[in-house]
């Protein structure tokens, strides 16, 4: 009897309980992806509604609808949820890919016109190679390291696109998605816990506000740098695991791949090969790498390129290059002090960036200490991050070296920062004490990303007025004419790279031998200009640059415009309120 009484309800409840369990299980599996999809939709809608005119000195964050700001934390929550659930950790990569598309694609959605003056210049170099099939090393440094640009010209020609600008907007998304691959190889060399691997990749993405992933040689160079570092650490590390496979065909192929990737980088970018060689050199010196001749080969390749292929640049700039070696104060000024200027909004952005880097360093230090306590110092990873640190002592690199050093250290910082939050125990059950801080830190970083990454958006983006003015400039100015702007922040040089003399008032003042006023510098330059005439262009982008960065004295742009306007024969050939172009006839040379 008892059996019958107890069995009947069980048999009735079992399907119901199983069904509830099944629903709960399905929701637990699908929930994070639903959350990510909702987050991405909210973000996309917010980006489409963003008020471009609302971009201020602290960047794009003021133009975004407040509701959209919950979207990145939603994706972080989905990531943490998946992490907490356990199971297939590779699913974590989906959340990261979506987050990368959201964060790095924001600029392309909000500002459909390609931003960054440098991207326009790069497109112009590709256009030059595409048009002439040649490189002229006398034009500037880019033509002495033309690898990336010849590749770009090849792609532009064969894809049939009008210009490299057509694909430039989405470069940050593509490059950051590509960086995931080598990072996973690298991190799996130091842990068997895939949760730590993917959390490190997430932190890398959240920390990569440095904006070196636009259409540029350094973006591709960084991919090869990561790939080389990952391959060397994973398959050429001096550990008992790798010794047994020292003669395998795979290792020979991998070494050939490392050398090939490095050679292509040497031909494409001045700085990246030094960072890569420094990192690999540090591994070899500390006996962490079996490829003992690799640094020597890398050094030889760099030296050979500089001596034989970039000799034109070298002979013209040897003093400049060698003169800055060891000039710590000069480098500090260029990389640090000079950046702490500009409008209050810009200063706020700069401080937010410094705070982010500081937070990463602090977290990474905690992670490294925890890692050491668990018996693994992960020295090769530390060396990869630390090796490029002396580079600012060798070269200020136009005040950008410190940023690049942070970029090269980022994979290391991201790993140890993730380790600080996750702990060192692999495969242990995720506790709330780990998941909550991870969600909080991730959400803060993802939201701060809007400030750190897009803080300069007001000066980085170009409006239709800026672009239209430059188009008119090229239509009106004959080949050989002098094109003068207040500062370099103009969407020019995407065509006629070598066909005009480009000058800026900022450059005239900076490179002038004797102290001259803005008026004197502009008058002298135009009066000694080419017979084809001179053209002075003022755009919103220049005014924003001067206002935010403060690289010209107050009123200098207006003084330059007034000087040009008062010169004999000057005519205003274009104005739309925001942009103006003046033409000054040239003097026939006797």
């Amino acid at each position, binding site marked *: 009897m008892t059996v019958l009484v107890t069995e009947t309800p069980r048999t009735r409840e079992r399907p119901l309980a199983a069904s509830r369990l099944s629903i709960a299980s399905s929701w637990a599996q699908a929930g994070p992806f639903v959350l990510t999809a909702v987050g991405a939709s909210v973000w996309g809608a917010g980006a489409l509604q963003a008020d471009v005119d609302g971009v201020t000195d602290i960047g794009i964050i003021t133009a975004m609808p407040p509701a959209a700001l919950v979207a990145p934390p939603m994706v972080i929550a989905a990531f943490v949820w998946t992490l907490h659930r356990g199971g297939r950790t*590779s699913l974590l*990569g989906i959340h990261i890919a979506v987050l990368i598309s959201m964060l790095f694609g924001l600029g392309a959605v909000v500002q459909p016109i390609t931003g960054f003056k440098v991207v326009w210049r790069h497109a112009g170099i590709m256009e030059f*190679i*595409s048009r*002439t*099939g*040649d*490189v002229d090393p006398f034009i500037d440094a880019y033509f002495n390291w*033309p*690898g*990336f640009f*010849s*590749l770009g*010209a*090849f*792609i532009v*020609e*064969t*894809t*049939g*696109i009008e210009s490299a600008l*057509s*694909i430039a907007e989405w470069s940050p998304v593509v490059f950051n998605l*590509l*960086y*995931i*691959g*080598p990072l*996973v*190889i690298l991190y*799996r060399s130091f842990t068997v816990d895939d949760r730590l691997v993917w959390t490190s990749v997430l932190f890398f993405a959240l920390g990569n506000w440095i904006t070196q992933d636009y259409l540029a040689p350094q973006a*591709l160079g960084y*991919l*090869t740098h990561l*790939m080389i570092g*990952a391959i060397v650490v994973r*398959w050429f590390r001096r550990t008992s695991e790798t010794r047994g496979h020292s003669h395998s065909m*795979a290792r020979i*192929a*991998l070494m050939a*791949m490392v050398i*090939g*990737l490095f*050679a*292509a*980088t040497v*031909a*494409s970018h001045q700085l990246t090969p030094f960072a890569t060689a420094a990192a690999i050199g540090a591994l070899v010196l500390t006996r962490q790498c079996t490829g003992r001749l690799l640094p020597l080969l890398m050094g030889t390749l760099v030296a050979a390129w500089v001596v034989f292929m970039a000799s034109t640049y070298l002979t013209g700039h040897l003093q400049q290059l060698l003169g800055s070696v060891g000039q710590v104060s000069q480098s500090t000024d260029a990389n640090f002090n000079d950046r702490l200027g500009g409008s209050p909004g810009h200063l706020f952005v700069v401080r937010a960036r410094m705070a982010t880097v500081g937070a990463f360093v602090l977290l990474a230090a905690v992670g490294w200490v925890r890692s050491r306590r668990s018996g693994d110092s992960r020295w090769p990873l530390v060396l990869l991050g630390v090796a490029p640190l002396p580079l600012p002592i060798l070269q200020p690199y136009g005040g950008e070296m410190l940023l690049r050093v942070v970029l090269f250290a980022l994979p290391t910082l991201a790993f140890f920062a993730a380790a600080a939050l996750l702990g060192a125990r692999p495969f242990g059950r995720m506790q709330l004490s780990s998941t909550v801080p991870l969600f909080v830190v991730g959400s803060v970083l993802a939201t701060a990303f809007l400030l750190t990454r897009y803080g300069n958006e007001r000066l980085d983006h170009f409006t239709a007025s800026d672009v239209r003015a430059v188009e008119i400039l090229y239509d009106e100015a004959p080949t050989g004419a002098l094109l003068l702007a207040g500062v370099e922040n103009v969407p020019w040089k995407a065509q006629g790279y070598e066909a005009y003399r480009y000058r800026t008032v900022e450059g005239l003042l900076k490179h002038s031998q004797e102290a001259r006023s803005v008026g004197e510098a502009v008058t002298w330059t135009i009066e000694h200009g080419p017979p084809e005439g001179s053209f002075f262009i003022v755009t919103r982008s220049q005014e924003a640059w001067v206002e935010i960065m403060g690289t010209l004295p107050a009123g200098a742009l207006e003084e330059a415009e007034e000087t040009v306007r008062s010169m004999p024969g000057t005519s205003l050939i274009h104005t739309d309120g925001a942009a103006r172009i003046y033409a000054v006839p040239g003097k026939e040379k006797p």
Partner: protein
Amino acid sequence: MNARSWVPMLWPTTVLVAGAAAMGLVAADVEHPARSLIVLWFLLVCPGILIVRRIRVIDTVALVPAAVAVSTSLEIALSLLMVYGGWWDPELLLAGMVAATSVWSTVELVLRRPHPATVAEVRSR
């Protein structure tokens, strides 16, 4: 031949199709966004994927990034040779790359000897 045995043949087939489509679109001078996407895919991924798949030890998630790094490095070398050699002809270079990758892919397909599975593929089985 079961479904899994087709997996190693997916990439050679993709490369073959992408190469043929890219060359056809360029030869016919088609002005359409599809041309840009197909040619870009071919140039960035296809030559490299044939090489990195043979290395076998690279993680699945890193195959495409490694392929892009190898493809672009190869194309940087070849395009620089053209520029410094004074015979800039992008269409000829594309044709050469399509021919080389097609031969490689065809050999893989005809021999029907798919490469031994990568570590990640074995793990996923």
